């Protein structure tokens, strides 16, 4: 799925240069669940944005499905994000003026989908995360866990090849975190997704097949994955 070789991403801030990701090399196989664990400020979200084709690396090769994302034109990157990559945000990032089902539909807007199919697929995606009865609720009328479920449904409605989750439980209480993680694990198993999850929580990271630690923008030794039967 992914092959990273010497990937570096720097930012200029307040006159200085920050190396968010330094010389990262990593391979992620199809269908693998990998957790990238590190403290706040370690560069893991930047790495996730690079994997999600939302940023271009300054140096190195970032290959996704045998395509170098660093060299693709912006229009093609947009098409890759639209069709092949699903993203779950820490802050849910739902459109506040759209209902739950409309937020899910937003992910299908870039595709050629007739209106009946648009609504049907969005409703199905909501049902798969257990929110069929909340379809017409605005985000302000949903709990944090429910909003994240909508976010997951939005990420999966277009049947992407990979699901990238940036601290998906970061804004949730303990009980809700477990619900969301169980949901993600179930969906990963059922759909054969490649799942890349970023977290600072070792307990959440431990549920993945493989853990990659990140510190000061550098990937450290990959920890042995847990066995999942």
């Amino acid at each position, binding site marked *: 799925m992914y092959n990273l070789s010497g990937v570096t991403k720097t930012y200029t801030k307040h006159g200085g240069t920050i190396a968010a990701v330094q010389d990262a090399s990593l391979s992620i196989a199809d269908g693998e669940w990998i957790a990238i664990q590190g403290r706040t400020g370690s560069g893991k979200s*930047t790495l996730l944005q690079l994997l999600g084709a939302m940023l271009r690396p300054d140096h190195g090769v970032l290959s996704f499905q045998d395509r170098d994302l660093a060299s693709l034109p912006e229009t093609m990157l947009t098409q890759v994000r639209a069709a092949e990559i699903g993203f779950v945000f820490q802050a849910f990032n739902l459109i506040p003026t759209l209902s739950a089902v409309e937020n899910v539909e937003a992910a299908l*807007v870039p595709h050629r989908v007739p*209106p009946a199919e648009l609504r049907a697929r969005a409703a199905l995606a909501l049902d798969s995360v257990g929110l069929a009865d909340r379809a017409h609720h605005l985000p302000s009328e949903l709990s944090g866990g429910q909003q994240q479920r909508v976010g997951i449904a*939005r990420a999966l409605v277009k049947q992407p090849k990979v699901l990238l989750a940036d601290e998906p439980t970061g804004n949730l209480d303990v009980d809700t975190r477990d619900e969301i993680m169980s949901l993600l694990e179930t969906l990963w198993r059922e759909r054969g997704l490649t799942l890349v999850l970023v977290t600072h929580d070792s307990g959440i990271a431990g549920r993945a097949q493989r853990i990659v630690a990140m510190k000061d923008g550098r990937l450290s030794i990959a920890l042995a994955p847990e066995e999942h039967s």
Partner: protein
Amino acid sequence: MSEHGGHAFYFTYLRRELQHRRRQALLAAAGLAVGVGLVVTVTAATAGVSGAEAAVLHSLYGVGTDVSVTKAAPDPGTPDPNSAGTSGSAHKGIGYSPGKRPQPVDQLIAAAGLSWLPASAVAQVARVHNVAAAAGGLTLTDSQFTVPSLSQLGPGGKPPASAFPTTSSVDGVDLSYLGLGPFASAHLVSGRGFAGSDASADVAVADSGYATAHKLRVGSSVTIGFHRFTVIGIVSQPPASAADVYIPLARAQALAKSSPVSSFSGMTSRDMVTNIYVAAASAADVPAVRASLARLLHAATVSSSADLASQVSGSLNSAATLAADLGRWLAVGVLLAAFAVASLLTLAAVGRRHAELGTLKALGWPGRRVIAQLLGESLVTGIIGAVLGVALGYGGAAIVRAAAPRLSATVAQSPGATPPLSISMNSSGAHRSYPPGSFHTVAVQMTAPVTATAVLLAVTLALAGALLAGAFGSWRASRLQPAAAMSTVE
């Protein structure tokens, strides 16, 4: 991008977003509406003032006249045949003295300030390039009084009331070109107008006000130059029109030549006119025609409507200046302020929606799709502003019509000519004055018509302003990276 499904989502998202930001959207729309309303109101007021000016000018020279040619009277100091006499003589310097019997006098003279042009000049003018038509006219004053007998003089030689002249204005109308000249602005109230066969007939058309004052109706008689004319029609005219009575030009020329007044002394028996009314081939040709006529008739005064407009004084003139200068710049200033407010509000909205717009890009929305969404929101704001602005404009125009004071316009009795200035001396010193009737002040009711063009301009300005404001926000959104969806940089 999807088709039907995408369109439905587009309008749903647009509607929800405007509902969510309705206060900001209405504020931006209100700002545009005020600017647009002011443009409509100022346009209407300017049109009303222009219409009033045109009505004043058209009443002087007729609707179809683009250029007028006159000749100024001789310098002041030359004996003025219009001046009323003092004791013992009705007119100084013209040979009337009380005798044994009363002597009725009915004299036709050129109107104050005007002198004579040869009628042959009309044909010359008609041949000038880009002249569509030319017509001659005579603007005369008919002065009637009775030179008293010696026995009628009072103590100290004081003349009776009949010795003082009553005057009326008489215009000779070229019946070949009824569409030129002041008569073209007259509207028939009763009877009939002139026909070509009336050229040598003693027929007259009277102004309705004059007819009422002198108890004239169709079939009545009126005496001009000792000749009885039959009134064939009564007309209503714009306020500034000077003529009390219209008669055929040929009859006016004949009566003027036969008048006993010596103001024609030295003239040959050629036909004479005091005005030449000219229609240009098109509005664009007026300046060139004016220049050509000025070269052809260098001793004459050649005036276009623009020249005459500059001679109009009074509150109408002030209103025209106010509408054209202050009104226009005020409207432009308010519009620019409205655009600025709308732009700032749009930029602020995009700033608040940073993460939202970044999320859409992260979901795979193309940049043009995001821009189209933002421009759609701005366009709806512009439509609301346009509708409100047009309504405000209609309201403003109605207020102008209702509240505007009655304007006045002062023009020379014979515009393009110099009114004669009288200088007299008495115990208190020298005094300068224009003879009575040299200037004519008319009251004009100002209108403020809202035209389809003004409404179209207003709608276009509102939509353009809204889209321009939206373009600023869209530019900012287009520069957003999908990573803007993330709250912080690690």
